[in-house]
């Protein structure tokens, strides 16, 4: 391995950089893929537009060109969030299986927390698919309550990430 590679691997904390990269550019792609796969499963033709912005990350516009029942609409809307959530749980599980105090382990944890927080970040700011789902179901939940739940969930994930960072970087250096 070259010197640059060795230097990077010595600074495990640099794995944190993959957290915002995942949350902004990778997770949104999988989120859209979740919607697309569900609509494809319902054999519904679609129109897709994916926007890329260096500052704001990736965002998508999907137009189903068929009539969906309320149940199919709810399933399609929730597929995006479930896609990123399932990936995040797989990655959290993988990170635990990996060798401790390694750059790769922190990288996988960063990817996991990126996918997880990306699932709830829109809800935190009072936007996103969950509001449409509730509207279709006919449930009237205060956006403040939903934002608070999203904030709690994201905070738990970040605290878990912080704890694993502490274990892998700090405690091993003592």
């Amino acid at each position: 391995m070259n010197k640059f590679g060795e230097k990077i691997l010595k600074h495990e904390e640099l794995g944190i950089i993959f957290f915002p990269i995942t949350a902004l550019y990778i997770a949104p792609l999988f989120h859209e893929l979740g919607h697309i796969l569900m609509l494809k499963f319902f054999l519904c033709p679609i129109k897709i537009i994916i926007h890329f912005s260096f500052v704001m990350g990736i965002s998508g516009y999907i137009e189903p060109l068929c009539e969906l029942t309320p149940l199919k609409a709810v399933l399609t809307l929730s597929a995006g969030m479930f896609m990123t959530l399932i990936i995040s749980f797989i990655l959290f599980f993988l990170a635990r299986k990996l060798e401790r105090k390694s750059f790769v382990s922190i990288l996988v944890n960063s990817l996991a927390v990126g996918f997880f927080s990306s699932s709830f970040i829109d809800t935190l700011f009072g936007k996103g698919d969950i509001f449409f789902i509730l509207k279709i179901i006919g449930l009237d939940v205060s956006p403040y309550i939903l934002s608070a739940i999203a904030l709690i969930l994201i905070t738990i994930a970040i605290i878990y990430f912080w704890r694993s960072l502490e274990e892998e970087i700090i405690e091993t250096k003592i």
Partner: protein
Amino acid sequence: MILQSIETVNLVMKSFTFLLVSALLLITILYQKRKILKTS
């Protein structure tokens, strides 16, 4: 039509939050690492 389109929101606040959290994590880890190296 129940579902006309699915649009992901594009918010600067989103990127700002992610960058802020990562920066805070990185700074605190580097600070603690330095503190440990100094005392050992």
